[in-house]
């Protein structure tokens, strides 16, 4: 009986210690800062595109009537100040403010404020534009949330330049933000992979053909693969195995570079062949949370950066 109790005590203590190590050890904010720059740029671009036909999408007689968006959200908690905002002047003022906020996030200006504001703006647009959204918007919003949680302006930012002389400042906040992005990416890939297990074409190895031969997605004609079923089968199975195993193999030091290396052709393939450039890139930005900060600093030419320990 004592040995059983001792075992569970040990499990508990090891779990708590592991939890604390995972979440509450300070981390260099360099990786988070790069994610901030890329996410800020993506948010800015995404919303600039809404601006090409702002009234056509969000106006009083737009393509997405308010009642329709509310019904699609199916929750009274899906808030947005854009609901009921029918005045074009007000809409444009809101939009320009949002764009300015995303630009500030990208360059790291008043980051503690602009990161939260960017998250709120991104949610406001997403809830109002229900029906016209896809994976890009989902990733945009959760990255914005985690950038708000952590000190995303602590490196490579205008804020940092204003505080000249301050050195690197590892923080628990930076670690928590990175860990949240990492965990969220694992959940995204796990369910993307598990969802595919319900589809016959992923088992038959022909799903890749379904993507390549879809004219509405196609930006690069890859239909020549119709004569090469074996490579199509192989890549289809590889994508499935990669997505399902991501949650396990992205953490160990030895397998992480392989998983990250595989993410690049997968998401660039989606970007180039299927015209989903923004989605492909934002998924790579999410994957960047697994790149150690010493790599970032070395790539950016900083001296005196210690390698892996």
């Amino acid at each position, binding site marked *: 009986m004592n040995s059983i109790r001792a075992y569970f005590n040990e499990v508990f*203590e090891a779990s708590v210690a592991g939890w604390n190590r995972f979440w509450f050890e*300070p981390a260099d904010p360099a990786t988070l800062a790069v994610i901030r720059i890329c996410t800020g740029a993506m948010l800015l671009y995404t919303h600039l595109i809404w601006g090409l036909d702002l009234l056509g999408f969000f106006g009083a007689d737009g393509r*997405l*009537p308010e009642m329709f968006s509310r019904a699609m959200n199916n929750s009274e908690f899906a808030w947005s100040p854009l609901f009921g905002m029918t005045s074009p002047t007000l809409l444009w003022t809101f939009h320009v403010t949002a764009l300015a906020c995303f630009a500030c996030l990208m360059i790291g200006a008043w980051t503690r404020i602009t990161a939260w504001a960017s998250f709120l703006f991104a949610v406001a647009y997403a809830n109002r534009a229900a*029906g016209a959204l896809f994976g890009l918007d989902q990733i945009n919003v959760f990255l914005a949330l985690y950038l708000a949680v952590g000190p995303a302006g602590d490196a490579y930012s205008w804020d940092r330049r204003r505080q000249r002389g301050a050195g690197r400042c590892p923080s628990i906040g930076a670690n928590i933000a990175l860990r949240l992005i990492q965990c969220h990416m694992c959940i995204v890939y796990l369910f993307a992979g598990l969802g595919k297990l319900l589809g016959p074409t992923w088992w038959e190895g022909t799903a890749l*053909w379904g993507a390549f031969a879809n004219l*509405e997605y196609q930006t690069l004609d890859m239909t020549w693969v119709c004569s090469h079923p074996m490579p199509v089968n192989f890549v289809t199975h590889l994508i499935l195995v990669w997505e399902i195993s991501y949650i396990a193999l992205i953490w160990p030091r030895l397998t992480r570079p392989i998983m990250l290396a595989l993410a690049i052709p997968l998401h660039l393939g989606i970007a180039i062949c299927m015209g989903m450039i923004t989605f492909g890139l934002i998924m790579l930005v999410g994957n960047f949370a697994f790149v150690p900060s010493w790599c970032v600093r070395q790539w950016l030419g900083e001296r005196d950066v210690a390698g892996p320990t």
Partner: protein
Amino acid sequence: MIRKPNPISSPAAASGWTPARRKLVSALLLWHLLAVLSAPWHAPPPASYLSEQVNKIFAPYQAATFLDHGYRFFAPDPGPSHLVRYELTRDDGTLVQGQLPDPAANRPRLLYHRFFMITETMYNIWMRIEEPPAEAQLTAAQRQAIDESNAATRDLLHQVADGIAQQIMRYETTSRVRLQLVEHLIPLPEQVRAGRPLDDPELYRVLADLGEFEMGTP
């Protein structure tokens, strides 16, 4: 004698966060991660009764933070596309036929995807319209429930179709437009090998006539 480290205080003690602060943040992290996990666990179907009940706890938080997603990208299978075809007569008498999304008109690509997602959403709504089984198999209450659900679904589809129609009419300077929901099937590899183009007219089939819409009358 080797002293066991105190797991509550030691690993992160150097960080300067008090145990109470770590416990509070840990609780918030757990809540958030469970909410993130619960969303794709319960949707889209199939989903267990347990997952649906658990998700009810997190649903308000997920909705407020836009975290209620299934993440089933290209799942279960990459399927056919869905388009909206329109036909109208301009005020000068010219007949115009077009479709959404239109890669030539909807540029840049992200704008094209916005239109594409709207037409895919319309298809997903249309799919919810239930074909009732034979009269004898249904009670009056069941038939009424199906009818009410179908009426609400058709109304939702009509709202977005009208939104699209109003924008087309504004752009094309006309007061009347007819819309159709169209499916574009994917040919088999052997068909493409034999020379069938991806835009073979036989690969397109009309799923639903969405009706004729007039300017300003939803």
